[in-house]
């Protein structure tokens, strides 16, 4: 309860603080990135499945929402949800065969998925306008809207991770054999984690489209995918607050160095190396931020 109130206060501060257009843009971007990172965190941090292709789900969400609003004139909210469900559908199809196997097969499949989706979007010119990009999206992602969705998703994510499903996911992360001998169908557990995480990324992609007003396939390449996973590792695997902090920090740092944009990736890489050397478990390890002072959980 205390946590929900704090999150809502943070949300109000982010939404109502009087800021210029540029800072407002950064906040929107931060919220969008956090939503996607939370999705990856559920899968990688809490279920232990590595992914290198979650930008694909963002692309699906972005294009679904864009095409529905621009071409078919469907209103914004249903279109964003449709983007999320599109991501769920594709995730389900990919997860069905790959998550049955133990090992990092999903990571490899996700690499392929990411490229395949990007290439489809680039080459299906009649539908997506290909690499010229898809312009004219109504700028529906206002600051208030982005913050509301981010805070809402953050609250429900914290909540369900503290419930039946959260324990189920952590069980299959920590020991798949033990989980299945505790009566969990681990394939199903992993599928649940994957579709939920895909949904978050789909929503995030749809919000990104509504913020930029223009999307193109190259926005959702390998780079974006690895960035999402890197942010989660950076924040600490198994810590949702770590993921949110990490994602916000990386967004800010990347913005700060926009002037020297050719060195951005260099700085980004250096930062990851430093973190991995000095804190291999990530910023917060597998603890949440309010558990830090207790020091009981490893």
């Amino acid at each position, binding site marked *: 309860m205390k946590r929900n109130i704090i999150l809502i206060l943070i949300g109000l501060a982010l939404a109502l603080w009087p800021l210029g257009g540029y800072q407002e843009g950064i906040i929107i971007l931060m919220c969008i990135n956090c939503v996607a990172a939370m999705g990856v965190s559920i899968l990688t941090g809490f279920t232990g499945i590595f992914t290198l292709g979650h930008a694909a789900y963002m692309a699906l969400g972005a294009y679904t929402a864009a095409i529905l609003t621009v071409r078919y004139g469907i209103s914004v909210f249903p279109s964003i949800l449709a983007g999320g469900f599109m991501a769920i559908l594709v995730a389900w199809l990919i997860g069905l065969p790959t998550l049955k196997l133990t090992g990092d097969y999903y990571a490899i499949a996700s690499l392929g998925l990411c490229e395949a989706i990007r290439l489809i979007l680039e080459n299906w010119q009649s539908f997506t306008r290909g690499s010229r990009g898809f312009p004219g999206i109504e700028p529906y992602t206002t600051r208030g809207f982005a913050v509301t969705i981010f805070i809402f998703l953050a609250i429900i994510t914290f909540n369900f991770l503290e419930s039946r499903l959260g324990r189920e996911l952590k069980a299959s992360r920590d020991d798949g054999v033990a989980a299945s001998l505790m009566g969990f169908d681990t394939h199903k557990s992993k599928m649940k984690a994957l579709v939920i995480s895909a949904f978050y990324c789909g929503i995030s992609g749809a919000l990104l489209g509504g913020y930029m007003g223009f999307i193109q396939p190259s926005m959702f390449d390998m780079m974006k995918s690895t960035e999402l996973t890197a942010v989660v590792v950076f924040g600490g695997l*198994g810590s949702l607050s770590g993921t949110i902090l990490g994602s916000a920090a990386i967004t800010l740092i990347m913005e700060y160095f926009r002037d020297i944009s050719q060195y951005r990736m260099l700085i980004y890489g250096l930062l990851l190396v430093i973190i991995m050397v000095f804190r291999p478990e990530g910023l917060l390890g597998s603890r949440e931020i309010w558990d830090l002072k207790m020091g009981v959980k490893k």
Partner: protein
Amino acid sequence: MLELHNIDMFFGGIAALHDIKFRVDDGSLTGIIGPNGAGKTTIFNIITGVYTPTAGSVIFNGYDITNMKAYQINRLGIARTFQNLRLFARSSVLENVMTAAQNRYVNSYREEIFSGNMTQKISPNLSSWYSFVESCLHLGRWSRIEKTLKFSSMQLLERVGLHDRANQAAGTLPYGMQRRLEIARALALEPKLLLLDEPAAGMNPEEVFELNDLITGIHKDFNLTVLVIEHHMDLIMKICPRIICLNFGAKIAEGTSEEIHNNPEVLEAYLGG
């Protein structure tokens, strides 16, 4: 309660088990002994569905569970602990027990299976559970059910003497405590049959003594059928009325502790003749 019929298990060309047959009676406390590599843990893995035997069948309460998946077998009421500890190391001690306790399926579906109406899909009775939406918003039945779950898990932890460690990460517990936590976690499933795989491994004599009491205690109090694999002969001789002895993947003897104690084949297996 449990019957193994002519179980063969091959790994490639190696026969890990050959023609194993025995039965475990309802409410009994049976021990399995044997030198290293005799195939004791393999038997557990076959019963719990981690492996499917090359030949033979496993019957649980009259129902053939040979080809069922591990989680399905577990849902029928078979729980186990592991020789090489498989706790959810990054979760807290309490969470470990709660994770199992949330799968304590309402008995109705088990009864359905035992009365012969086995459906292909074994699914738990979820009507007494909160839904995903309730868990997202922490509304409705969420707080009541979580509270009961926490309470019953704490009781189990008290039973094994770990209640003051409830919030510690399971992976940071000392070895002996981790073993006891595994027992608590298995009990949380409210099984009918409990399989203990070397529960005393790595324990000092004092801890083994306590474990003695714990095993006989839970056997009585939880109305369980227990099957124990053990190396500590004195432990098994003391608590198990019936003992099965394996060597090189075959059953060489079965009987009361005295019969086993005086069996020449068992002596040969253990002392090399």
